[in-house]
């Protein structure tokens, strides 16, 4: 498949990996150049290491986006890296930062008579305090998975006597699609379509991570698909105010390796810049039509609570008053100040917040692999295939082999 297979070429990968090893060994002269041993060794090492900021400690690089985490695991990329580079899996997974209370709201809307609740498949298994959407469907609610918000709109056209709600979630990548769908509904004068808006913005979330005193990071791989909408400029504060180098990165395995190479090169050369590895998709200024649609429909929420991140004032997004008729919160009277995650029932022993911010490894959570596992996930990081707990659960099994 064109523009996919070329970016999965193992020969080019090998060269990039060699270059990364070379750069890393130059920065860590005492560390022999060798393959990462095993996650078990990694675990004991990370337990040993406190947070002295010296070059004797591995570089901590956060891939912010869950899509990148997925690529790392799918292609086994971490096993190719020198053990002087440690990937910290970031919170860029919208179902992972969704508070349980929001899932409860979804279920409450789906339970209203006459409602067809539409959602991306990702949200189906996420646990609420009462139940997940999958359970709500089993209990008789009309919950439907769609591929596109436009498909939800088509369902609304076909069912004029039903209320069709689309669960709008995701970072900026997805915002234009939901905004444009709402505007299309408005043009057609559809009265039975609304969005339950739970979008979240990337730079604000990144800022929350950067202000965390517990977290030591050496650089970021930034989500390329967010930048194809917002461009490169919104990340300037990361280099300017926090002095962390950042590379906007694509999602194929070669993209990630090339971006890592670029990032480590920046660190080795003492540079700190916003670089764009994903120039084939990401224009410097982003996407004008998409940004216009976002600004037309959405505005910043004053207060929004995210799982593991707490209140990030400017990260939450809501529908502007002008489009209130398409706002499920208003239509169904859902208050947006529900209990934050940590007070949610049954979540006491979970350390999702710490894992999400990258200050704790999944296996250090007392519930990991025990009461919280992929079959019976308690925390969302175990639900989503790109949640770092689910990924580590599978990866940890690999460790047992060696």
């Amino acid at each position: 498949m064109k523009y996919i297979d070329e970016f999965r070429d193992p020969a080019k990968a090998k060269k990039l990996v060699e270059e990364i090893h070379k750069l890393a060994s130059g920065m860590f002269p005492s560390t022999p150049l060798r393959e990462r041993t095993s996650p078990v060794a990694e675990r004991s090492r990370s337990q040993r290491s406190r947070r002295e900021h010296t070059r004797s400690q591995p570089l901590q690089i956060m891939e912010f986006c869950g899509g990148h985490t997925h690529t790392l695991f799918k292609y086994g990329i971490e096993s190719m890296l020198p053990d002087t580079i440690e990937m910290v899996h970031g919170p860029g997974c919208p179902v992972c930062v969704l508070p349980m209370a929001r899932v409860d709201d979804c279920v409450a809307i789906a339970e209203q008579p006459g409602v067809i609740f539409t959602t991306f498949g990702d949200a189906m298994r996420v646990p609420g305090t009462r139940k997940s959407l999958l359970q709500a469907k089993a209990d008789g609610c009309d919950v439907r998975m769609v591929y596109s918000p436009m498909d939800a709109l088509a369902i609304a056209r076909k069912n004029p006597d039903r209320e069709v709600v689309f669960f709008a979630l995701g970072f900026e990548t997805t915002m234009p699609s939901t905004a444009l769908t709402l505007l299309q509904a408005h043009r057609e004068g559809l009265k039975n379509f609304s969005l339950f808006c739970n979008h979240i913005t990337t730079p604000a979330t990144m800022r929350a991570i950067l202000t965390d005193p517990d977290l030591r990071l050496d650089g970021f791989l930034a989500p390329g698909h967010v930048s194809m909408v917002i461009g490169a400029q919104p990340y300037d504060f990361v280099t300017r105010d926090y002095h962390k180098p950042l590379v906007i990165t694509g999602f194929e395995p070669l993209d990630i390796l090339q971006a890592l190479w670029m990032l480590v090169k920046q660190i080795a050369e003492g540079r700190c810049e916003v670089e764009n590895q994903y120039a084939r998709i990401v224009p410097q200024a982003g996407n004008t039509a998409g940004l216009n649609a976002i600004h037309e429909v959405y505005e910043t929420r004053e207060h929004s609570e995210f799982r593991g991140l707490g209140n990030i004032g400017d990260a939450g997004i809501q529908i502007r008053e002008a489009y209130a008729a398409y706002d499920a919160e208003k239509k169904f009277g859902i208050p947006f100040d529900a209990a934050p995650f940590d007070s949610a029932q049954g979540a006491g022993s979970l350390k999702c917040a710490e894992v999400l911010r990258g200050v704790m490894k999944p296996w250090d959570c007392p519930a990991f692999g025990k009461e919280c596992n992929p079959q019976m996930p308690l925390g969302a990081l175990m639900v989503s295939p790109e949640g770092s707990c689910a990924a580590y659960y599978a990866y940890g099994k690999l460790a047992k082999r060696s």
Partner: protein
Amino acid sequence: MCLGIPGQITEIIDADNLLAKVDVGGVRREVNIACIVDDEHPAASCVGDWVLVHVGFAMSRLDEEEAARTLALLAELGDMQAELDMMRRMEGQA
């Protein structure tokens, strides 16, 4: 929230509502092209373009030159590597 995949626009279904058909490895799907249409790129001109598809929307036009440049750079990296290795080996022999 980032699953996006390159596809090629094969036809315009509805120029007024900015709907086109895109092909991803032989799988066809209707997509909205509002994000890639502007004065420079009217809907009709989009056929044949490679785009990044996300949740039923063509979100960005793939810059084929940039893609080629990235791949060329990576290929060059390999060649440079081979040359360096060769030089090192020759130095070792000398």
